[in-house]
C-alpha cells in the first residue's frame, strides 16, 4: 500500500540555519500520528512543506503519492490547520461556506455540531473572535473537511480544557467512522497521548524517535529508594538519568520490566513509576540533563522503527 505521507532525505535551510536535516518519514494511510518536539525543532516547517506551503531545499516529499506543492489534486484532499491561522476579514459563516466549496468531503452537519459545541456563531466577524474561538474555527474546518490527509499544527492556542476535550472526543468519534491520515503537532503530550497510534519526535530538525505510541508506555521506569538498593537494582541496565539527594536516589531506567524485576524491586524497598509519554519525549528530545536516545541508544523499545 502507498503510504499517505512519504518524505525522504528532506532538508530545509534558511540561509545558514538548518530547519530540517535529512528527514525521512512514512505515514500509513488511516492512522493518527503525534508530531512532537521542542519549540523550533522543525515541526511547523515540516507541516508547511507537507501542506505545499513551502518548498524543501532538497529531498523528496509525497502526499497521497504526489508532490503537494502547487498540486491542486493533492491540496483538495488535504487540510492544514495551523496555530494562529489567519483569515480574511469576514464572518464565521462565510469561512465555513468557503471551506465547504473547497473540500470535496465536507460534512455540513459535523461543522454545525462543532460550531455549536464551541459556541461559534456564524454571524460573528472573525476579526472579533477571541484567540480560543479562532482556534475553534480552525478545528471545526479541519475536522469537517474530512480530508484524507489532515494536518494540525498546535491547533488549540487559547482553547480552554473543556474545548480541548471536545476536540479530542470529536476527533476520535469522527475518525472511528471515517478513518483518515491525521498528523497532529502538540506540546500537550500527556493530554493527547491516547489519541496517537504512532509518534514522531523531532529535535533540531532531525527525527530522533519514531515509534508506536502504545509501545512506548512502560519502556522506561523511574526507580527510586535508598542509594544502595537503587544501585543494586540498576547495575548492568541502561540508565538515562541519575539523581541523588542524601541517602535517596532516583534513576530513570530503560527497558521493560518483568514480574521478577518487580518482585526484586519490592523486596529491595524500591518504588517503580513508569515514565509517561511526555516524560519520555523530554528525554528523547534534547533535555540537557538526559542522554537522548541518540547518545545511549535506549532501547529499541518494542515497536520502534529505528
Amino acid at each position: 500500500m502507498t503510504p499517505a505521507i512519504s518524505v525522504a532525505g528532506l532538508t530545509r535551510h534558511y540561509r545558514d540555519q538548518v530547519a530540517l536535516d535529512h528527514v525521512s518519514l512514512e505515514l500509513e494511510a488511516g492512522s493518527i500520528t503525534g508530531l512532537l518536539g521542542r519549540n523550533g525543532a522543525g515541526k511547523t516547517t515540516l507541516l508547511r512543506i507537507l501542506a505545499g506551503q513551502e518548498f524543501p531545499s532538497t529531498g523528496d516529499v509525497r502526499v497521497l503519492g504526489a508532490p503537494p506543492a502547487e498540486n491542486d489534486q493533492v491540496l483538495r484532499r488535504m487540510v492544514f490547520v495551523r496555530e494562529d491561522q489567519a483569515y480574511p476579514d469576514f464572518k464565521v459563516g462565510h469561512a465555513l461556506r468557503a471551506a465547504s466549496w473547497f473540500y470535496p468531503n465536507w460534512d455540513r452537519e459535523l461543522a454545525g455540531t462543532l460550531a455549536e459545541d464551541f459556541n461559534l456563531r456564524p454571524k460573528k466577524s472573525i476579526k472579533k473572535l477571541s484567540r480560543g474561538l479562532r482556534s475553534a474555527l480552525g478545528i471545526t474546518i479541519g475536522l469537517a473537511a474530512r480530508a484524507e490527509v489532515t494536518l494540525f499544527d498546535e491547533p488549540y492556542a487559547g482553547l480552554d480544557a473543556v474545548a480541548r476535550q471536545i476536540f479530542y472526543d470529536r476527533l476520535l468519534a469522527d475518525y472511528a467512522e471515517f478513518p483518515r491520515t491525521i498528523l497532529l503537532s502538540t506540546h500537550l503530550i500527556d493530554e493527547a497521548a491516547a489519541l496517537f497510534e504512532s509518534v514522531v519526535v523531532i529535535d533540531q530538525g532531525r527525527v530522533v524517535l519514531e515509534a508506536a505510541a502504545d509501545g512506548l508506555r512502560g519502556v522506561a521506569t523511574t526507580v527510586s529508594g535508598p542509594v544502595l538498593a537503587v544501585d543494586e537494582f540498576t547495575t548492568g541496565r541502561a540508565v538515562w538519568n541519575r539523581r541523588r539527594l542524601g541517602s535517596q536516589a532516583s534513576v530513570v531506567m530503560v527497558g521493560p520490566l518483568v514480574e521478577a524485576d518487580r518482585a526484586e524491586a519490592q523486596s529491595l524497598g524500591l518504588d517503580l513509576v513508569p515514565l509517561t509519554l511526555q516524560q519520555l519525549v523530554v528525554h528523547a528530545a534534547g533535555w540537557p540533563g538526559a542522554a537522548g536516545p541518540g547518545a545511549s541508544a535506549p532501547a529499541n523499545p518494542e515497536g520502534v522503527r529505528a
Partner: protein
Amino acid sequence: MPEMAGLDEGTPLFTQIADRLAAEIADGGLAEGERVPSTNELAAFYRINPATAAKGINLLADDGLLEKRRGIGMFVAGGARQRLLGQRREQFTERYLRPLLTEATRLGIDAGELIELISDFARQQAGDTTASPARGGVPV
C-alpha cells in the same frame, strides 16, 4: 491529564484494555455468549485510538477468550470465565502472597503469626458482615 476512564499512563493501553475486559468476564459482568463492546465503543469510552482498542480485543481473541461472529462483532467464548479464574488462582501466590510475606518479614512477623493474623482477620470480617448487613449505608 486526560480522563481515560481509569486507564493509567505508564503501561501499554492495549494490555490495560485486555485486562479490563478479562476482569469483567471473570467477575461475570460480561457473560459467556454476550457481545463485548466494539472497538469504536471502547475507543470512545476510554478516549483512546481505535487501533489501540482493537489491539486489546485481539489479544483476548488470540487467546480464545473472545470469538468473532462475522458481521456482528466479538462475543465472550464458552469456558472463558473458568479459564480466567484458573489463571487468577495460578497468579495468586505471586501477586498477593509474595508481597504479603515480604512485608511481613520486614516487620518481623513469622509465618505462624501471619496465619493467625489472617484467620483472626477473616473471622472479624465475617462478623462484620453479619453484624451490619447494611454495608455501604450511611456512615455514622
